[in-house]
């Protein structure tokens, strides 16, 4: 068997596409197509596959995005490991004694039954619509919303949350205690952000974000920073 041209590197959130840069793009694309069409478990439906920016040209990125899309795989150009400078830190609130304690307790109780296997992190629920007020989405894995999260909606994930749209609802990533979970949105303007047992509220006068942002816990605080998509 010949060496695979295209390799996938697992990361906390989705999977990263890697290949030898000396290989011609058409060969890379062919290899991906073959893998997609072989129906192998190589690319699962609903997974997110990312690639570092600057490797492909815009049109190559578009070609791959289209190809992946036909097989219900999401493709995204994103810097994965490089450190980022926090853009705007937001106020961290310590959980309120009554309601939030109860909230936390409920989560921990559940967590007892949900001993996370490594595969759990890769599991992703894909919601292909806008989540509207009064609706709640729950998953022990990660959640990808292709649409908006409206005010009054709730997204609760054991893993990370990715909103490919405007996020105005309540989002809770790492709801069973995973403090490495994070939240990404094209426009991150939620009423409240929760990651693991941290709660953050954007300041009242927060300016509306201009690009995609990511919220994660750094040094015990929820930090918001810009990301490239």
């Amino acid at each position, binding site marked *: 068997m010949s060496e695979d041209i295209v390799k996938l590197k697992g990361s906390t959130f989705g999977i990263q596409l890697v290949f030898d840069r000396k290989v011609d793009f058409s060969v890379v694309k062919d290899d991906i197509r073959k893998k997609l069409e072989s129906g192998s478990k190589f690319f699962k439906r609903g997974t997110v596959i990312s690639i570092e920016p600057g490797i492909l040209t815009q049109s190559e990125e578009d070609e791959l995005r289209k190809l992946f899309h036909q097989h219900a795989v999401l493709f995204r150009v994103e810097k994965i490991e490089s450190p980022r400078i926090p853009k705007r830190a937001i106020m961290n609130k310590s959980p309120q004694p009554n309601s939030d304690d109860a909230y936390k307790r409920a989560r921990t109780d559940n967590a007892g039954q949900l001993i996370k296997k490594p595969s759990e992190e890769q599991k992703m629920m894909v919601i292909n*619509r*806008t*989540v*509207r*007020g*009064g*609706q709640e989405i729950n998953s022990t894995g990660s959640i990808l919303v292709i649409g*908006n999260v*409206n*005010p*009054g909606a709730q997204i609760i994930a054991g893993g990370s949350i990715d909103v490919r749209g*405007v996020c*105005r609802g309540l989002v809770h990533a790492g709801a069973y205690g995973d403090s490495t979970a994070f939240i990404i949105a094209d426009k991150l303007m939620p009423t409240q952000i929760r990651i693991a047992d941290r709660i953050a509220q954007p300041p009242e006068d927060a300016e509306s974000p201009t690009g995609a942002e990511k919220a994660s816990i750094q040094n015990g605080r929820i930090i918001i920073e810009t990301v490239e998509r």
Partner: protein
Amino acid sequence: MSEVIVITSGKGGVGKTTTTANLGVGLAIRGKKVALIDTDTGLRNLDLLLGLERRIVYTLVDVVQKRVGYGQALVRHKKYTDLFLLPTSQVADKTAIDPQEMLTIVQAMRNEFDYILIDCPAGIEQGFQTAVIGADWAIVVTMPEIAAVRDADKIIGKLQSENKNIKLVVNRIRPQMVKDGTMLDMTSIDDILSVDCIGQIPDDEKVVDSANRGIPVVEWKNSAAGSAYRDVVSRVLGEDVPFKPFETEGFFTRLKHVFGH
């Protein structure tokens, strides 16, 4: 070839009944055979807006309880002979009509009418399912304020999970307040709701006057709301009508200014 439309909202008092009456009369003026069904049992008032209160003999509840056929309960409009109202009871409550029974009645009526409009009670409690079940698509009425838009969002979520197509009517717009930024503009509403808008109705005192007289504003030539409702009628009929810009107070003061010199 009949079309069944439910007129609904999240928040109460935003103008469902007003919209049902105006759309019904408007479609009748355009030569369609129309039935309006009031499902706001216990709180009915569609009959009042149409000036038909005194003609009611039987109601939807009588039809459901098989005392009469729907034909006997239909009240014909005085002026538009192809416009009918199927009123509901003032005394029964919303548990009196089961969704399946409502569906049966609506299906039977389809053969006879071009349009069947169903006036829904507010919210998602009792009566929502009954009103919505027989409809091909829904008009969600809202007002340009945050609470009403949030509630509309919830209703839209419910309707979408029932696979209904949804169009939006924004009622009681006050152009000057929108201009001043004290009332939500269409862009901010669309930002949240993102459904097709088929009506932007200004706040208009004549709506209140028309309710008292039982003659919907869609018939009135000098009413801004009436003119906006005529456009809604055209859009429901599939015509591509652009939205007209509202006249704001600013516009009038500028005019006065010009005349003053």
